[in-house]
């Protein structure tokens, strides 16, 4: 059952069309991410859900109730702000208990709830601290506790990890994920970091220019990006010019630049597409350097550059008959020598990983 339904959401700022008919269902208890470059409308959409922005058209339904005319303070959502918005004049406990004022709890109940919330985010015993003396990670936890204590139907997170350093960010990623499973509340995360979205989410909506380009699970987004742009935005993808030359009953034949003719099974083609884009995509791990000289379907190429990552090596290989090198990732095994720049090599590919885009 969906906890949030967004139906035809439109948002204009003057002439600027920020959200273009967003349609989306978010399920109860899922970790949902809005992913996209800055200016794509993801934060605007989050603020529409929270009630901080009015819509120019469309409906927001939360928990079966139309949110039209319901102000932010009356919505069953709570938000973790990008800047955390910790009230600097209040202590940690006062911050966490801020939203409980309306609940008219006894002092004892109140402090018990605050303590529980602090414990949940790993800040036991921090209640009396002045909030401006906290570190970035601690502020983040206070913001989480403050929002979760109200037991919202949906927790909204606006780029909550962008202000943290790399190490702290990775730690908070897994902690947020754990917390979400523990409380079972729907989380909606806004992020521009595709890696973060892949790691944390059950489903991801990729947004460009006010539209959802693709809404899918992380695996599907990575394996089967719907458009070239989504493929480019998530991870690394090589693109090779391709031409459709024959259609069979269960296979379609493509002539791919640098690789030759390739048959692709119908189940690997985008559903319902009538024609295909003149380009196919290949992830770096779908291509491999061929170490045995006698492989059948290998094509020749030249290594123009390489980056050594310890566990992996990324080769830039210019396939014969092409003008742009492709990126190939190889796991570094002791049996595999690291090839040198300028050496000739042969490249094989995994047909099932070839991505065809609808036109």
């Amino acid at each position, binding site marked *: 059952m969906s906890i949030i339904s967004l139906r035809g959401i439109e948002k204009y700022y003057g002439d600027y069309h920020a959200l273009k008919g967003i349609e989306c269902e978010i399920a109860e208890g899922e970790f949902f991410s809005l992913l996209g470059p800055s200016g794509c409308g993801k934060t605007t959409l989050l603020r529409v859900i929270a009630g901080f922005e009015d819509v120019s058209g469309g409906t927001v339904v939360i928990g079966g109730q139309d949110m039209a005319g319901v102000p932010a*303070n009356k919505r069953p959502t*709570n*938000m973790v702000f*990008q*800047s955390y918005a910790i009230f*600097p*004049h209040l202590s940690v406990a006062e911050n966490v208990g*801020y939203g409980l004022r309306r609940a008219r709890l006894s002092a004892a109940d109140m402090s018990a709830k605050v303590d529980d919330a602090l414990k949940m985010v790993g800040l036991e015993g921090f209640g009396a601290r002045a909030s401006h003396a906290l570190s970035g990670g601690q502020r983040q936890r206070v913001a989480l506790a403050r929002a979760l204590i109200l037991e919202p139907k949906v927790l909204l997170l606006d780029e909550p990890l962008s202000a943290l350093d790399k190490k702290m960010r990775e730690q908070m990623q897994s902690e947020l994920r754990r917390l979400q499973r523990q409380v079972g509340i729907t989380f909606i995360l806004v992020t521009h970091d595709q890696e973060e979205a892949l790691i944390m989410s059950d489903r991801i909506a990729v947004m460009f220019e006010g539209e959802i380009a693709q809404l899918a699970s992380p695996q599907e987004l990575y394996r089967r990006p719907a458009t070239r742009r989504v493929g480019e935005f998530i991870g690394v993808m090589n693109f090779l010019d391709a031409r459709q030359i024959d259609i069979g009953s269960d296979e379609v034949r493509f002539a791919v630049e640098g690789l030759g003719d390739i048959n692709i099974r119908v189940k690997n083609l985008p559903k319902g597409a009538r024609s295909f884009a003149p380009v196919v995509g290949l992830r770096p791990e779908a291509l491999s350097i061929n170490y045995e000289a006698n492989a059948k379907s290998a094509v020749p190429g030249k290594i123009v550059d390489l980056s050594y990552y310890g566990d992996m090596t990324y080769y830039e290989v210019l396939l014969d008959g092409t003008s742009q090198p492709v990126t190939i990732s190889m796991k570094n095994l002791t049996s595999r020598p690291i090839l040198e720049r300028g050496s000739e090599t042969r490249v094989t590919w995994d047909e099932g990983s070839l991505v065809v885009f609808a036109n």
Partner: protein
Amino acid sequence: MKGGWLRVYAIVYLVFLYLPVLLLPMFAFNQGTVIAFPLKGFTTEWFVQLAGIQALHGALLNSVFVAFVTASLSVIFGICAARASTRFRFPYKGTIMGVIMVPLVLPEIIVAVSLLVVMVQVLDLPLSAWTVIAGHTLICTPFAIAILTSSFQGLDQSLEEAAVDLGETRWGAFKNIILPLVSPGIVASFLICFTISLDEFIIAFFLTGAEPTLPVYIWSQLRFPTKIPAVMALGTLMLVASLIILSVAEFYRRRGVARVGGKDSGGFL
């Protein structure tokens, strides 16, 4: 020591700045009736004398009243303008804010003369403490706006949204979050406006009615050499009062900076 000659210059300059201020208490406690060197000996007679001057007490009360009302009005106008300019976008914002700040750079005599013309010649109002308040509010408001704008600007906009998100109404968020956070700025701007109004002479000189403000009273006394030692004593007391008020204002301003977790970047103005 770094900055050798500059440091020497800075100290000489400070002497220049403090020269008149140091003379003030010197003559206030001087036995001689003539304000000149050499000094004659220590006395507190002039301070005692102050207690007996009825006109002075009237002027003082009048000035405090004017300063209090002026500061209150300026702070209210300042809050409106500072919040509007930091939080909202509206048409002709730059122009409107510019016009509001104009009294800051207008020669005070122009402000005084124009208000005089309107009050007396156009509206035919009697001059009173209220006409002085009108003028003082005009010149104090830009100061209040300047101080309050920096208070409002330091605020993270999402603080207010966070409060609303946690269940507050717009007004509740303003009252419980924004006002406490800018209160140091409010106190500081109130005190600054109070002090400016208390010390302002030209506008008061033009617009005051039968009851003079303190500076207007002092001006009238400066013509009589025998009254001057008492004026010096009065000036000394006013300086002490100003310093206390300013220290309080500075204390609040710093607390405000510390409160929003900012870094202190210097004093007033």
